[in-house]
């Protein structure tokens, strides 16, 4: 039977997309021939706003770049500013940052598992995942006082300490989380329908993955041993014993299993960090001096490498804050994963890289020195103006 190709638009509004994004999928029968994606529906101007606020106000702002990886953003921002001001964070603060970061990674991975199960119609598993995720959120709430946007970081340390009284409670919660994760491992590795849905779907081989510069679990599922926590250790990761989880297959199932492995590694890291928590101060005094220079730092967020670049001009307001989120690297790999798959799998593949759209939106501001005005435009229009 001969099919003509038709264009199937998915988005910008779609029941399965949590944020606006547009997928232009060209289909032939039930197969995807090619795909294209467009983001840019929820630009928030955070980078621009960051150049109008002081360094301390920006902690608050950067924490709100993403709701799920809020601690990652504030950690990365604070580390970059600490590099800029050349200050060393106290040991105890580094451990507290590690513990909160790993608990946040756990909650993010549990959340992602739930969403992935919902996409393949396994609502029972979805409900149980999110129920177990409550344990993690309670642990985070005990440490920081909040369930999201923890506000635990500050330049030169952390704002709240882990007191000896709550450590037994956190360890008990970790045991609960571990048993829940074991349950997940059991059904993910044994359920035949999950395997049928996820195996050999959305394959991203190692070469393409390298070419597309994917990061985080997406890269590790394609066989690349890539983890900033090992490659460029920050916080307390170099002092703890843990492994990078990789899978060679590069399909959706591999991405599921990599995240599953990371859940166990995160539990392990948190347990060690709680056991080896050093004594001492949790923060330095308020940092006032920001010399004129630039700084760059990166951390491993839940979706991959997150990088911040800050340039200062000697005042207490940064001249430029550049954020490069992991989804910015992972999203462009989607079209090559989608080609050749069934339409029913499109959203599963999209969900498998745990995409985030609004944090990848950027606007181009052009400053016209002749007419003394500035305006926003797109790169395509700029290219047209040149010729």
């Amino acid at each position, binding site marked *: 039977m001969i099919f003509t190709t038709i264009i199937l638009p998915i988005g910008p509004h779609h029941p399965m997309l949590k944020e606006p994004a547009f997928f232009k999928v060209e*289909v032939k029968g039930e197969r995807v021939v090619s795909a294209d994606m467009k983001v840019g529906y929820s630009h928030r101007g955070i980078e621009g706003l960051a150049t109008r606020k002081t360094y301390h106000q920006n902690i608050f702002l950067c924490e709100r770049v993403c709701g799920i990886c809020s601690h990652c953003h504030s950690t990365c921002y604070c580390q970059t500013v600490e590099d800029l001001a050349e200050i060393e964070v106290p040991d105890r603060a580094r451990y507290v940052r590690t513990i909160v970061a790993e608990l946040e990674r756990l909650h993010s991975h549990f959340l992602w598992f739930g969403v992935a199960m919902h996409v393949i119609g396994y609502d029972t598993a979805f409900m149980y995942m999110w129920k177990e995720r409550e344990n993690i959120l309670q642990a985070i709430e005990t440490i920081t006082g909040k369930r999201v946007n923890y506000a635990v970081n500050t330049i030169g340390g952390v704002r709240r300490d882990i007191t000896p009284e709550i450590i037994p409670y956190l360890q008990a919660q970790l045991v609960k989380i571990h048993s829940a994760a074991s349950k997940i491992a059991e059904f993910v590795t044994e359920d035949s329908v999950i395997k049928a849905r996820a195996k050999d779907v959305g394959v991203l081989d190692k070469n393409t993955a390298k070419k597309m510069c994917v990061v985080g679990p997406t890269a590790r599922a394609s066989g690349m041993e890539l983890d900033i926590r090992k490659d460029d250790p920050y916080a307390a990761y170099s002092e703890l014993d843990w492994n990078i989880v990789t899978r060679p297959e590069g399909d959706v199932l591999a991405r599921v299993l990599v995240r599953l492995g990371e859940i166990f590694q995160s539990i392990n890291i948190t347990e060690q960090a709680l056991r080896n928590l050093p004594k001492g101060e949790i923060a330095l005094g308020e940092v006032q001096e920001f010399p004129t220079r630039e700084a760059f730092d990166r951390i491993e967020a839940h979706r991959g490498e997150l990088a911040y670049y800050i340039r200062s001009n000697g005042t207490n307001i940064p001249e430029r804050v550049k954020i490069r989120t992991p989804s910015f690297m992972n999203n462009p790999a989607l079209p090559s994963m989608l080609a050749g798959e069934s339409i029913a799998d499109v959203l599963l593949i999209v969900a498998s890289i745990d995409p985030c759209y609004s944090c990848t939106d950027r606007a181009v501001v052009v400053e016209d020195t002749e007419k003394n005005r500035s305006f926003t435009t797109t790169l395509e229009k700029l290219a047209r103006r040149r010729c």
Partner: protein
Amino acid sequence: MQIIEILFGLLVYPGLIFAFLIGSMLYWLYRKVRARFQARKGPPWYQFFADIIKLLSKETIIPSTIRKIPFFLAPLLAIIGCLVPIVLLPVGSQYATVSFPEDLIVVLFLLILPGLTLIIARMNLGSTYGTIGAASEARLMIAYELPFTLSALTVGIYARTLSLTSIVQAQLIRGAFVSRYPLAAIALMLCMLPKMGKRPFDIQEAENEAITGPLTEYSGVLLALFEMANAMKWFVIPGFAVVLFFGGSTNIVEFLGKCIGVTLILVFIDIIYPRFRVDQGFKFLLKIALPIAIIDFVRVLLGW
């Protein structure tokens, strides 16, 4: 007198009102059991009626781009496809309200209607989404109607009758046919899942895969009619299985008990499985449900 009896059967017992009440209760049972198994609280018993009343009070929006006749016909056909089989089924007694020698065939045809109307509703969306959704649903329908019909005919051939009343009477003498032809019963139960739109074959309700549900353009009264047909499906399809394989019954309590039993089996399967992709569901039905239906069909032809 007979006309009044038939009208009473069609509209009150065991037709419209009775089937709607029992069907919505079985639907509530499904939602409640499912919620409890998923560590949720679940809806109260009157939730479905509240939904229907709300829908009836809402404005019915008729999109300007839509073909009017199939748009109005689809929910009505869905209701008819659930209502008429109930009159032909011997509900709660050995005798159906209306009975004639070939009513098994008629019921089999009418039970196609609820699925078919969803395809009509989808085709009528007038968009690419609708066409793709309808195509995959039609594909699945081919896979489940064949074993469904074969299993039903197995019973008919064994009882040497195509009348549902005689099938029930034969079972009262010889025992429930599920013990004689268990494979055909399993095939029928498997095909009931896609017929009711339940996991692992709930492709018709999977809005995240087929991009849009069949009822996207429906609102108000027409959507309420679809929902009512959906509730009646919860009574008529398990009821059909009870009549064919689980011995029917001589009183209504026993009949409803058996219906609840069949419903619970479907609910448990729905809870513990994720969703198949359309092609996987198609293959599963043709590889598992069809062969076991054929085995029992051959057995009954050879008289084993």
